[in-house]
């Protein structure tokens, strides 16, 4: 005796899911093939099984190759990194580049470019950044309050600070030989 699909309540359920909730409570769900596909739980039902197997067989070596990719500098493989969560040396970021980026983006809210402090950058640049941000906020407030004279004055101040900020950032980058 089969279970009916919880979605359409007509066809027999052939797809069975157990979700573990945040509290550790298992919740079972049952769908027929069509509803499961519609819910995005399974692949298209009309994909022939042999195509699926072929895809899988092709995927395995790619995964194996990725896991075996090894950093010539420290000798760690990508598989070892995945197992322990820690990289072997700074060069791994270059060696594992494209394999690493999806993980990095996932950890950092989809970001992949550094926007903070740089070596050799003095604290003054940081202070400049704080000033710029506070002016930006004041400008927003001035615009919201329709205090346009203040806004114009703030915008001029901001432009001066921003060009100073860009110049000092540039200076630092070229000093680093980057």
């Amino acid at each position, binding site marked *: 005796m089969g279970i009916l699909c919880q979605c359409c309540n007509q066809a027999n359920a052939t797809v069975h899911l157990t979700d573990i909730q945040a509290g550790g409570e298992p919740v079972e769900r049952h769908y027929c093939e069509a509803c499961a596909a519609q819910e995005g739980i399974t692949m298209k039902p009309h994909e022939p099984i042999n195509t699926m197997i072929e895809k899988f067989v092709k995927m395995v070596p790619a995964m194996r190759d990725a896991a075996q990719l090894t950093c010539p*500098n*420290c*000798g*760690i493989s990508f598989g070892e990194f995945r197992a*322990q*969560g*820690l*990289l*072997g*040396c*700074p060069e791994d*970021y*270059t060696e594992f580049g494209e394999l*690493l980026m999806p*993980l*990095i983006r996932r*950890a*950092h*809210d*989809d*970001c*992949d*470019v*550094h*926007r*903070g*402090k*740089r*070596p*050799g950058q*003095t*604290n003054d640049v*940081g202070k400049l*950044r*704080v000033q710029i*941000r506070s002016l930006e906020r004041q400008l927003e407030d001035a615009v919201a309050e329709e205090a346009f004279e203040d806004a114009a004055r703030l915008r001029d101040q901001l432009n001066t600070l921003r060009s100073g900020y860009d110049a000092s950032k540039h200076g630092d*980058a070229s000093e680093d030989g*980057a």
Partner: protein
Amino acid sequence: MSVDDLTGHVGEWLRGTGPMSDIVISSRIRLARNIVGYPFLSRASGDEKREIYRALGDALSSAGFGSNSFFVDIENISDVDRQVLVERHLISRQHAEGEGSRGVSVSLNETHALMINEEDHLRMQVLKSGLQLETLWNDISIIDDRLGSEIEFAFDERLGYLTACPTNVGTGLRVSVMLHLPALKITGEIEKVMRAAKDLKLAVRGLFGEGTDAIGDFYQVSNQVTLGISEEEIIDMFSGQIIPQIVDYERAAREALSDQRSVQLDDKVWRAYGILENARAMASEETMFFLSHLRMGVSMGRFNQLDIGTINELFLQIQPAHLQKRNGGKLSGEQRSIARANYLRQRLGHNNN
């Protein structure tokens, strides 16, 4: 100066002063850095760890960190001494339990602790009582500059500072603010705060960081995203929005309790005092529980026999390693409970019986 000299007093961060110190115990910022030319520690040999240890030790002394600081060779001190440093938040558990050459340079007032060979070659941290993130950022950035002029840190134009774990790459910065939230716990609203924090990609942990429970109603809120956002933006977010908001919730919960359940509230506070002052054996966790209620009473002005600084100090002094240091030797769990109760009676009681 050595670990022995630490245990009798408290560091600056537990003093109970600074902005919002009724609820914000302390603010902490740490930066992760690695030296160019060495593997990260999981791939470093014993010799390489020794070299890194020496290179950073040299950089610390030539950058002038000798005079107002003391250095502890973590590899060659006792387990209890390591635990003392963990209880004082000067090193992490991971650093205490690690292997090979490792050390920490601590400023005399314990506002900064620079760990060598933790997960990264260098983990600098600064900590102060109350909400003082801007000051801390200023301080740690100067420390970073001073050391950075002595030694080259691994840095990538696109990814920023390179760290052993990709979750720290970029700024390598972690802000942690320790909050005391007993009223939100009592009213059951703490879960809401935790959920909101998680939605904002923040981590909420217990007293000793990763993998520890929120004993004593202490919660550490910290950022997880370190890439694509500047240090100032992270700090701004914490001191401008996140922390004041949680503090407001806690204050509102405290007000609601004093308005609607003042007898029950005072009962909790005074029961806590009664037990702490009279018990003959106290386990660590129950002590934290009662001290938390007592701290709430003091910071709400409902209990005036003690000040916040004293309560903060008790939280530290009743920890296992501090108890053992005071007793001058290892104690079993049961012996610690007795020593803890004796200590509390001595500090709180009117008659030392």
